[in-house]
């Protein structure tokens, strides 16, 4: 089932249920609660996926609104209903994965409600806007925290990263805004359902942008990787050479403390370091063998001309930068070890025994640590 059909089903069911409750209980709170429940289900299908951060469902914001809109009993009822519908419609991975997700949502929402009520309980003036916002903000953070914890538990690995947390910020602030505007505080008049409707627009815009970003990023990575195998398809390099040199270069750069951007340039330059070879005339035609420096310089020229200045500079044969040195060592290592781990020691030894001015001593040190030491070259 596509997302579009799931969204349509939930929207139709939600509208129908809201209409029925409206007829059964005119003017009562239930039709609004049903709509919020539908919003929670829909929010489960719209996941913010910023870069390396794990997906973050928009439903967290609507749970915050529901907290503000319903009594605890009604909250539990609507939430359970919404999670049940979401469970059925959730894009199926395994049954157990769906169960785990649903359980973590339940725990998250319950914990969030607990924190929210506790803060309002402890506050001297629970109607003060600052207090309400604090309680809502805490509830939002708790939901995200439970989600993170569940993920770590499942991966059996403790890890937390700041990457992509702007999305969390947008989600929590939107949820706070929707909730406060829904009911108002301290005698102010609320906007009702208009609040979640209106203030989910920026979240949907963010969702869309992250989606496009992820897709173009994947296409970009695949394009570079595809280009990197052309020299191999042309028989100019051993199969997998570019990929191995790229992995090793990044591992060496990481060991030597290069930053994230520098590592990215290094990876691009490493993947494309044989590209120049394709543009040179055949040795038989020109009568002179091809020098490695010609290959790098031609590649550097192309990269620079097409706007990859930093990567081009790394590739140039006269590059004195650390990245350039890393690239040279990684490429030479892969040539010597013919891509076979069994020859790694011999290759390192051969590189060390060469004249000192050919390869940078720092990089050779890193090579020894990365290749011979326990470290397995880390994927970037």
């Amino acid at each position: 089932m596509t997302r579009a059909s799931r969204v349509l089903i939930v929207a139709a069911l939600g509208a129908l249920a809201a209409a029925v409750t409206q007829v059964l209980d005119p003017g009562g709170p239930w039709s609004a609660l049903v709509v919020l429940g539908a919003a929670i289900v829909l929010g489960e299908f719209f996941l913010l996926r910023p870069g390396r951060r794990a997906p973050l469902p928009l439903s967290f914001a609507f749970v915050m609104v529901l907290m503000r809109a319903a009594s605890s009993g009604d909250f539990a009822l609507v939430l359970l209903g919404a999670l049940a519908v979401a469970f059925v419609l959730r894009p199926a991975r395994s049954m157990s994965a769906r169960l785990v997700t649903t359980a973590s949502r339940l725990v998250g929402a319950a914990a969030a409600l607990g924190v929210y009520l506790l803060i309002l309980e402890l506050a001297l003036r629970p109607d003060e806007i600052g207090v309400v916002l604090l309680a809502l903000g805490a509830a939002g953070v708790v939901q995200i925290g439970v989600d993170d914890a569940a993920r770590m538990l499942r991966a059996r690995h403790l890890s937390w990263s700041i990457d992509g947390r702007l999305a969390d910020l947008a989600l929590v602030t939107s949820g706070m805004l929707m909730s406060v505007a829904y009911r108002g505080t301290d005698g102010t008049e609320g906007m009702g359902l208009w609040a979640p409707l209106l203030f989910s627009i920026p979240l949907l815009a963010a969702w869309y942008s992250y989606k496009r970003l992820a897709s173009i990023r994947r296409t970009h990575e695949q394009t570079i990787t595809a280009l990197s195998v052309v020299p191999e398809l042309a028989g100019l390099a051993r199969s997998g050479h570019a990929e191995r040199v790229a992995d090793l270069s990044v591992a060496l750069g990481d060991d030597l403390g290069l930053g994230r951007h520098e590592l990215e340039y290094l990876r691009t330059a490493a993947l494309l370091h044989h590209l120049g070879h394709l543009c040179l005339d055949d040795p038989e035609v020109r009568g002179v063998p091809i020098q490695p420096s010609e290959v790098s310089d031609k590649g550097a020229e192309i990269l620079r001309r097409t706007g990859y200045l930093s990567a081009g500079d790394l590739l140039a044969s006269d590059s004195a930068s650390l990245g350039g040195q890393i690239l040279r060592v990684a490429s030479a290592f892969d040539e010597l070890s013919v891509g076979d781990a069994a020859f790694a020691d011999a290759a390192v030894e051969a590189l060390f025994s060469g004249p000192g001015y050919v390869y940078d001593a720092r990089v050779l040190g890193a090579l020894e640590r990365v290749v011979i030491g326990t470290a397995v070259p880390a994927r970037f």
Partner: protein
Amino acid sequence: MCDHGAEDLPPLADHPEDRVHEPNQQARVTALCAGLGIAATATAVALGARGPWPVLLPLLTLAVLHAFSESQIAIPHDQLASSAGVMLCMGAMVVFRDSESYLGPMLVGAAGCLNIPHLMGWEWRKLLFNASMFAFAALAGTSVLWFIVGSGHAPPAELLLASLPAALAYAVVNLVLVALVIALATGQRLLAMIGLVSKEYLIYLPFAFLGVFLGELYLEYGVVLVPLFVVPILVARQAYSAYLAEKEQHEATVRILIGALEAKDPYTAGHAERVATYVHYIGIELGVPASRLERLRLAALMHDVGKLVVPNHLLNKPGKLTAEEFTQVRRHEEVSFEILTRIDFLAPVARSATTKAGEFAPVADERDQPIEPHIVAVADAYDAMTSTRSYRKALTQEIAFTELQQNAGKQFDPRVVDALISALRRRGEVHGRGHEAAVHHEDAPEAGTGSAGLGDLMPDTDGSKVAR
């Protein structure tokens, strides 16, 4: 680009001195900036003297946010990467309505000039121009909004409706002043510039609506809700900017490939871009949905990637290819296919890179036959015929059309051929002998067999027909 600061538009982009050539134009731009600055200051002083002064807290909050959001413009010229400036100005118009302090929205607007690169480089003309331009735009919007709504309580619906003409007034001042400074700086006609920038006016409206809500929420709940309102919008915009930046990087990578191809075979300079253009024309003509046009464009740009594996001397060989050489050259299709298949986005149209793509086979179930490969094949053949190659001079457009039409239904999809011909005729474009960009290949033979174009691959016997 919700607001056009002077940053948004090419002529005053980072190095105005590059664009503003004549000292005369320089002087006029300076005079305009100074004049606007003086007028804005005088207006502000007059309004300040008449009072009342705006309340400090909302003024500072909105001004800081405006400055921040204008500084954030990562990539101008794109709709959603727009600044939220009009929203903040509209918010100020609502917030200061009760106190009737015109100075409030004006100062909030002026704060939009505080763009960090401009400040670092002390580009005083841009700072002055943007400050006065935003101030006047905000003042114009304010006057309209307050005139319509009046002071005192107004229902939100009325405010929302009134925000439309207010945003229009804001936009008119904004656009006209920016168009004026560009026209002065570049010597272009003012009306043409207004036409160019006014296309983006529609994007003001949703932000103007949001601004009304911002103002109302501020009045209702105080300053604490303003960041909650603005942060998600800025995050969404940041995400969109990141997307645009990554897209730009991807374009650069595709340019690497094209650059490498052109380094091998100078005769094909511009070929990939031209095929991409024709493919776009055909796609529009055939009503290919926008989501697939992008895929089509990339497939066109990359369709020759496999030629990277063909040795240079074969690619540029002026005479006929031997059978062995021919096999070697033909391998490029296989490689292109393999490369495109490795990219998920392009895999469905990977056949674009093979001659089989061109072989038109009417099938019962058209859904299984994406039309993209046929489009690339026709565009590729057309460009191969109408540009000069190492083995022959360009053919005229009419010969190329005839050739395509003769092979329509056999080698080419007739719908695609018709679409290309009518698109080019309608646009009045002429390609081919004497019209191609690379006219310096005077020594190229009149006809011959070579390898550079997909349509040219077959070993040729009579020499006069090229595309098969």
